[in-house]
């Protein structure tokens, strides 16, 4: 089922430390305002999740530069049903995510229990993504097998980072809550 989601700027005021909340307090508009999400589950093949979003200036390489950030997208799922979305979980209420970066082939797997706690590892063998950028639009297809937390709760959160806007870390466009895909 295809859904069009409105994204919001992740609130920078909640970011840990003294710099980001102050320096980026003007970041109130999502740098990517909408995304189209299609999530399908095929018993044998696991989850196929497609994202499409407009991106006029893609950044797919940051090699040999100091001031570039890559485009990126993450799918986050709660490991326990009431893990909060906007803070990326909290202590004892973890979330997991699959992170795609435009400058890398392989996905990362993320785990977090609150802002600033995220751990990044190589994704499991059954996880992959294919991306295509044409005419100002990204089309990104994740194949994720298995993903027990997604099977169990059927909830997804989306985050998009636009390299051209120096999005990274907490500077991102996010869905306004968990999105049901079951």
């Amino acid at each position: 089922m295809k859904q069009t989601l409105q994204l919001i700027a992740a609130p920078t005021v909640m970011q840990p430390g003294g710099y980001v909340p102050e320096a980026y307090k003007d970041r109130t508009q999502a740098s990517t305002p909408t995304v189209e999400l299609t999530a399908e589950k095929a018993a044998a093949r696991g989850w196929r999740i497609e994202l499409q979003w407009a991106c006029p200036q893609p950044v797919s390489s940051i090699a040999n530069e100091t001031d570039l950030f890559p485009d990126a997208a993450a799918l986050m799922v709660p490991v326990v049903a009431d893990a909060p979305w906007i803070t990326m979980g909290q202590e004892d209420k973890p979330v997991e995510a699959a992170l795609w970066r435009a400058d890398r082939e392989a996905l990362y797997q993320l785990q977090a229990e609150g802002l600033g706690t995220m751990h990044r590892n190589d994704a499991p063998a059954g996880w992959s993504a294919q991306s295509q950028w044409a005419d100002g639009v990204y089309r990104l297809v994740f194949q994720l097998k298995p993903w027990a937390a997604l099977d169990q709760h059927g909830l997804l959160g989306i985050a998009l980072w636009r390299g051209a806007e120096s999005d990274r870390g907490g500077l991102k466009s996010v869905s306004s809550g968990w999105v049901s895909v079951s």
Partner: protein
Amino acid sequence: MKYAIEKPARQVAMVMDLNKCLGCQTCTVACKKMWNTDGGTDYSYWNNVETLPGKGFPKQWDEIGGRTDQGAVKRGKIPNLDSEYGRAWSFNHKAVIATDAASGKKEWLKPKGKPDWGPNWDEDEGTGTYPEDNHYFYMPRLCNHCTEPACLDACPRQSIYKREQDGIVLVDQDKCHGYRFCVEACPYKKVYYDYQRQVAAKCIFCMPRIEEGVAPACARQCPGRLRFVGYREDQEGPIWKLVDKWKVAIPLHPEYGLGANVFYVPPMSPEKFDSQGNGTGEPRIPTAYLEQLFGPDVHKALATVNAERDKRKRGEPSELMDILVAYDWNENFKLDGAVREVI
């Protein structure tokens, strides 16, 4: 500071006497060869020496943010590799090696392309009109291992920390995800980005040497004997004497409010000439300019250094001059002996 940080048991610190810097860059090279020879840090200089007045390294670092002149957070800029740091030049080595004397084919060693910026690009340019008031001086810079580090406060992952035992500010590169908020936030632009390993990298105050009781390479290698290293609180050491007792060593841009632990004895200068070539009694380096760099304490610091120098000229003793002259350079450094457990 939003993060609560423990006050370290003591704080290592450095004083540099700008009246003695030769601009030889031995410190820069000593540091570079020791810590930054990898591809992703080829452009970076944990220690650099810039000519002032001048653009500095990275270019106009004091204008690209992190802190306001009231010490408030201000969004900073990540310097660009080409226009602000200066990309490491590549040279025509192959063509030079292929030079064939017999055939008369000659190729001189030169950079590929036409560089238009790099570290130390404006070396010795300075400002003013010769012979009336031309002037410049050298400004060696490294991370200040601040008491309230802007870099530390900028990291949402808390990958930057201040060591409990000596206050050295370090990046935990295993935790760092290369967001570069620290690069933006440091108003001295002393955190760099290793673009190959995609992590932040900064001066470690030669931490393994400190643990052996040995001063950092930039300080030990300095032929000008102008660097002093010790603990901030040690009343027997050179730092306390120059900073707290004599009050001649002051931090760069104290208005940023970070509590820098690197201090400078500001430069004195010969007098200006009038159009007839007579001395005017005014220093060539305008004191107002030095005040922009070091804040209002620069007046007192200069007055003290001048007065103590005059004393010495009259043949009277001066503890301050004896320290600054550095008769025995070993006395520039006062650190504890080895504290590292050797395994």
